[in-house]
């Protein structure tokens, strides 16, 4: 079939704010700073925003909270909460709303002060009653990812060393990103020898816990051409989910990224080998292995060997999480929007020292819950249209 939405909307603004530690700032202040910066990036202001796509771990009604704080009364709002995956699938929702005239300027915004406010993961879902799992004190989310890692190692012979390589490569990219939280050199030995949190994952197999906000602005493609920066077109976007409770995950080593990736690639008319930069939600090192398999970059079971040969490092065959990812750049609770922001920066040639030369197609992938919701976006420059 022909996918009508391909290239109909574009990202025209993208920005981060307060990445790292932002003591003394609320999540709303952080989100608003990101929103203003993304709008300035596009040459627009808050007065232009008539579509609001909000996501938060701190607010029960994120669209209402951020709308009120930003002082806007949008014509169209939504606040999809599917975990860290949310901001990526919200690009699809924004494209639908834009194409149907429900809004003209869509703002996707996220902010969190989880590091400074609590010093640990913060989630409203922590208060949700999950009676079939609660008695066993599952340390969410890491214990779920640990059990997927353990099963992947059992079924396919994936090794802890291969997982560690994901963290090592992320740190190498982070070293070239002034925004990254951790930039000191990291070796596989450091990863393997650091504190075990949930076997087989050590603290260096885990993402950071930081503050930070991110925002992107989208318009219809015709208007995008007249704004400040070169448009980055949404070529394909799709999502999918398999469970809520980790114990209900149908197959611990296969995610809904199979579905989201297939549909997003089909919509875009592209294949994995067409992608120049890959930004995948790396909450844990096992994410890179399983999601690259599910997205079609390698076959199921081969992800360990695929990531283990250094191809994710700067200069490697697959430029991957070029900002340092959740493992070394930032992870303020929900990473989805940051995968998109880095894809946009690379496609605009704004990557500085870490720029991948000539990137025209980028993939941003979000992951939510414990491998529960997956969302894939393919973005491209005008050359990819």
């Amino acid at each position, binding site marked *: 079939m022909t996918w009508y939405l391909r290239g109909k909307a574009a990202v025209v603004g993208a920005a981060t704010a307060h990445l790292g530690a932002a003591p003394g700032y609320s999540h709303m202040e952080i989100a608003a700073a990101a929103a203003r910066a993304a709008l300035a990036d596009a040459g627009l202001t808050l007065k232009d925003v008539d579509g609001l796509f909000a996501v938060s771990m701190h607010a029960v009604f994120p669209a209402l909270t951020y709308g009120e704080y930003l002082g806007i009364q949008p014509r169209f709002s939504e606040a999809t909460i599917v975990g860290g995956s949310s901001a990526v699938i919200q690009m699809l929702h924004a494209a639908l709303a834009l194409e149907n005239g429900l809004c003209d300027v869509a703002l996707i915004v996220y902010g969190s002060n989880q590091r400074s406010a609590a010093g640990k993961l913060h989630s409203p879902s922590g208060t949700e009653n999950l*009676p079939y799992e609660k008695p066993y*004190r599952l340390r969410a989310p890491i214990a779920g990812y640990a*059990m997927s890692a353990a099963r992947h190692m*059992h079924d396919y012979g994936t090794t802890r060393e291969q997982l560690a390589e994901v963290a090592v490569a992320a740190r190498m990219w982070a070293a070239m990103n002034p925004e990254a939280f951790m930039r000191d050199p990291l070796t596989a030995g450091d990863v393997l020898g650091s504190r075990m949190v949930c076997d*087989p994952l050590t603290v260096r197999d885990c993402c950071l816990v930081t503050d930070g906000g991110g925002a992107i602005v989208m318009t219809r493609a015709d208007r995008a051409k007249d704004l400040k920066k070169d448009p980055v077109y949404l070529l394909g976007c799709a999502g999918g989910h398999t469970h809520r*409770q*980790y114990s209900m995950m149908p197959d611990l080593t296969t995610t809904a990224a199979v579905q989201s990736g297939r549909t997003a690639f089909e919509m875009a008319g592209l294949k994995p080998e067409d992608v120049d930069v890959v930004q995948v939600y790396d909450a844990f090192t096992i994410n890179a292995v399983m999601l690259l398999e599910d997205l079609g970059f390698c076959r199921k079971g081969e992800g360990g060997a695929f990531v283990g040969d250094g191809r994710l490092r700067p200069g490697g065959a697959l430029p991957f999480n070029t900002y340092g990812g959740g493992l070394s750049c930032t992870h303020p609770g929900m990473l989805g929007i940051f995968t998109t922001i880095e894809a946009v920066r690379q496609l605009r040639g704004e990557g500085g020292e870490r720029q991948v030369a000539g990137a025209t197609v980028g993939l941003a992938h979000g992951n939510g819950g414990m491998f529960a919701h997956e969302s894939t976006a393919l973005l491209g420059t005008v050359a990819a249209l």
Partner: protein
Amino acid sequence: MTVQGPDATYFAYLAATDWRIPRCRSCGVHVFQPRIMCPTCDNEAFDWVAPSGKGVVHSTTVVRRRPADGGDYNVALIDLAEGVRIMSRVEGVDPAAVRIGMPVAARLTDQDGETIVVFDSAGGSDR
């Protein structure tokens, strides 16, 4: 039992130290978590049956915790002989000694006044 939903039914049985899971009266599959409809055939009628208690560890982790906070503990997913998977833990062995493929047997225990299902190693391995 009084008229109630499957969640309340499950926990009412457990509270009476009688572990049961629903089995679809139409297609015969066991259903977990309990639901108002069979996810296989959409039937709405179930028999509540006692599982054999036999299972195999599908995956496992050790949640590392400081000794002062109670020490390390196991969390595992168990494939029951009835064809459903549940979250639980394996007790009686070092949490790090729990292995994927390890045969286990269910046991009811009291935790903070609540009856829960845990598992013990049943010896051997099907690996």
